[in-house]
């Protein structure tokens, strides 16, 4: 989960009259987990579905609601003009068809705001923008460009000076030689042409979704901003823009409309989404008995608008709250506005009778028998390594099931047997006193579609006098007393077991496993200094359905 660092004093200025303690106590009830709290600075984790919480402006709006200082939806006051026109060239249709934008004027920009806007931009790119693929955003110094702008395409030979660089590069050079180019260039595929925003003087403003031009760099001297969003989906692009617009208005900017002209594109409307909900549903889900007016008040505290119309509540949702899909989201907004701490947990009698799974019960019985025989239960990972499963035990590794891109070398292959891991356990305990006796029951995997998952049971005994007879007696008596199963052993061979001291385990003529003395090679691989005997059988189809 992403983290944002907040300053209590800044929050207090933004929210109004509240104490530091009130803020600390309320942050979790917005869904923000406090990670660390140190004098004026508090770091909180926020959910990726609330990008507005990546700035203190967004969090201040939320807290104002909870404290009841300001409630209801945030209305964007956008001054309509025809001064800022973006024309869309039809060539963008097949590449990145949509553009939208807004002007924000007369704001004060300090380092703190620049930092927050950059964080917001990154967060939007990662979340709703899906790493800039769906939509991406550019924030520019309005006074460094001249309108109308054109959203068009260009060849890869087109040159301009990108943000944070001092010399001109071609599009191809940007894609090959800069970090952003290499990270996001694949979004543009192999197309000959790439998207570009030009101003009326043919200056390059932006090369979406990769990088802005250096000309329009935002600094602490910037007063007026132009924000553009391009993307492959109009709604997502407008949603993204609405988060930035809301934050900028809260930060004190005056919003002015941009006019978008061209194929399929229209100027953003930032319309409120309306959803009608009945108090019965809310009370049914929450187990509460809230009146319509309590519900409306709670929704307003969650910074939404709500009015009663007939028996239903009509809820108006600002466009930056695109995390709200439907009714259940509104139920949550009511719960948050009302305060989770105000819901008293209740325990109603269960209408159903509980039951353990028969597999769990049988495995438990088997474990108890093994404990009685002096065997301690081991617990190993299902996801282990080729080294443990095959190399150390001399087994064939032809049918391995591996995972892609594991971050841990010890966890790359799904086990097809438990015994190798028990041997590995013994090798890590050679300094503990003997005898050492371990068993484990667990799932092993084999190829199939879907993958076969069966339950295996393995046991191992290691001490100076460990013998075939000992381990066969253990298995034989366990299955007999546990499940009234008779087994036989037939001479066999296995790469982990000693030739001549290895047997297949049979039940009613069907092979169910392997038993014997572990061979010298394996024991030496593991640097174990005492004899080891062991077995492994399938429980599936034997005692488990």
């Amino acid at each position, binding site marked *: 989960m992403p983290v944002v660092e907040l300053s209590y004093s800044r929050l207090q200025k933004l929210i109004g009259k509240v104490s530091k303690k009130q803020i600390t106590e309320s942050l979790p009830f917005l869904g923000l987990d406090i990670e660390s709290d140190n004098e004026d600075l508090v770091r909180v984790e926020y959910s990726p579905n609330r990008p507005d919480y990546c700035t203190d402006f967004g969090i201040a709006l939320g807290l104002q609601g909870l404290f009841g200082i300001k409630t209801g939806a945030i209305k964007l006051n956008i001054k309509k003009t025809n001064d800022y026109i973006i024309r869309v060239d039809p060539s963008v249709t097949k590449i990145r068809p949509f553009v939208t934008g807004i002007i924000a004027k007369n704001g004060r920009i300090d380092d703190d705001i620049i930092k927050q806007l950059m964080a917001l931009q990154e967060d939007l790119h990662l979340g709703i923008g899906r790493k800039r693929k769906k939509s991406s955003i550019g924030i520019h110094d309005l006074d460094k460009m001249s309108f109308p702008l054109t959203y068009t395409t260009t060849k890869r030979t087109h040159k301009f000076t990108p943000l944070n660089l001092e010399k001109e590069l071609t599009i191809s050079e940007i894609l090959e030689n800069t970090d952003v180019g290499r990270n996001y260039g694949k979004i543009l595929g192999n197309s000959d042409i790439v998207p570009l925003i030009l101003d009326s003087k043919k200056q390059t403003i932006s090369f979406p979704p990769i990088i802005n031009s250096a000309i329009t760099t935002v600094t602490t001297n910037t007063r007026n901003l132009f924000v553009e969003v391009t993307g492959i989906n109009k*709604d997502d692009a407008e949603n993204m823009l609405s988060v930035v617009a809301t934050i900028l208005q809260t930060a004190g900017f005056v919003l002015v409309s941009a006019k978008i002209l061209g194929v399929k594109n229209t100027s953003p409307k930032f319309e409120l989404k309306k959803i009608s909900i009945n108090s019965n549903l809310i009370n049914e889900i929450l187990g509460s008995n809230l009146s319509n007016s309590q519900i409306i008040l709670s929704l307003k505290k969650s910074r939404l608008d709500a009015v009663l119309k007939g028996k239903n509540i009509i809820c108006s949702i600002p466009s930056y709250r695109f995390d709200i899909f439907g009714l259940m989201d509104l139920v949550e907004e009511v719960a948050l506005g009302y305060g989770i701490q105000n819901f008293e947990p209740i325990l*109603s009698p269960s209408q159903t009778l509980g039951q353990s*799974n028969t597999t769990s019960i049988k495995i438990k019985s088997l474990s108890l028998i093994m404990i009685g025989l002096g065997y301690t239960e081991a617990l190993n990972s299902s996801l282990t390594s080729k080294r443990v499963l095959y190399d150390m035990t001399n087994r064939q590794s032809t049918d391995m099931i591996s995972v892609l891109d594991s971050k841990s070398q010890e966890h790359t292959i799904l086990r097809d047997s438990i015994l190798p891991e028990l041997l590995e356990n013994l090798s*890590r*305990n050679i300094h*503990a006193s003997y005898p050492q006796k371990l068993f484990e029951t667990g799932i092993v995997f084999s190829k199939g579609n879907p993958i076969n*998952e069966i339950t295996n049971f393995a046991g191992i005994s290691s001490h100076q006098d460990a013998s075939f007879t000992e381990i066969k007696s253990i298995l034989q008596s366990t299955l007999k007393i546990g499940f009234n199963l008779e087994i036989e052993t037939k001479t066999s061979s296995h790469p982990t077991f000693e030739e001549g001291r290895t047997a297949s385990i049979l039940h009613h003529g069907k092979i169910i496993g392997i038993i014997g003395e572990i061979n010298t090679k394996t024991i030496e691989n593991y640097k174990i200094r005492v004899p080891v005997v062991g077995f492994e059988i399938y429980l599936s189809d034997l005692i488990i359905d």
Partner: protein
Amino acid sequence: MSQVFHEIEKKIITALKNNPQQTPEKLEKSTNLSPDQIRRGIEWLKLKELAIVIESQSITISLGKNGLDSFYNGLPERRLLNLLKNESKKFKVLQNELGSIFGPAMGIARKNNWIDTSEDEIFLKNYPSEIPGEKTLKQIGENKILKNIIDKNDLSAIFKRPDFILENIIKNKEISLTEIAKSIEITTEPTNAINVESKVPDVFVARTHPLKDTIDEIREIFVTLGFTEIIGSMTQPSFWNFDALFTPQDHPARELQDTFYLDGFSTKKIGTLDQIKKISESHKKNWRYSWNIDEARKTVLRTHTTCVTIKHLAENKLDEARVFSLGRVFRNEKVSYKHLVEFNQIEGIVVGKNANLRNLMGIQREFYKRIGITKIKFWPTFFPYTEPSLQTMVYNDKLGKWIELFGMGVFRQEVTKPLGITKPVLAWGGGIERIAMLKYGLDDVREFYNNNLNWLRNTTKCQ
């Protein structure tokens, strides 16, 4: 309470009552026990604070070969003086007469100014009546005697001469009874009682794994709360792990870096045609992207057990149910003291009457109460497939802070509707290792999978 004594102890106590201070050797005689039995018996009685052992040491001396020779024949210098008593003699004559002792005898006689020498003759100057060392030789004679009764000055004259004096260090033990022991009544009747108060060696107890114990405990709590256990596969098509749970195909959580995808495994049968159609439609409508069935076929190691419970619901369309699933889940993470790639999770659902948020909170509160956690609170949180979503925070006294445990919520209608589930479904779940760590006081989660016998053999089962 009367103490039980070993036969050996009884005999020693009895002997010491008759004769209060004895050496081990004396005790051997008075008890008829072997030296080893006496040694053990004294040791036992000492541990019980019934016997006092005073240890001392003494040194005896006796004469060595040269000492004895001097005792019988006189000291070399005495023998030299005797030869010169009547007349001076030539060197050679004396050398022949005295042999190897001639040299030392000459040295001492000359040093004490008893003789004088010319070119080839030796004269007597003084004839001492007593030579240092002669008294000691006489005193010792053929015996062993205690060193401390001998005149130290006289002894020193011969002490360092080769093979004159042999020294012998003797350690002595004197055993006596403590006041308590003196009042002990020894019954001579034989008894088969043994010392039940003595220490005994540890044995290693075979046991179920501590984490399994926690899992069993949690299973039992939910069964008694009316839940039925279901089991599902660890390998799942992305369809049930993600798509059915409203996680869009381009969501970061689905990337390789968080989720284990099986190399080259595309599941053929992922769901019914109706399920696939409705879920893909819900994704297209709500997330606005083109849903790809091949993406849904990719097989993953389940990242949660929710895929098991939601599939169960979709297949059984239950109106009234309490179900849970317990098992391994996987995350592609770097292993550390707080992260494992594979851990256990419990996931439960409730459908039917009273399936509401307050009841969900009530079930959690009851669960925590039963594992001994009473200080809990609920905070809102976010999960892609539940709304509203909460997390339980529990207060840990040892750590002195609030810790996040189970997450919970009501399944989104975007999850339930496409699967034909019409009733609200409560869901909750979380990692079990975290609870087990609190229980066993561990701060490294890897310990559960190390199978370290020292840990397994010494960890208290009921904590």
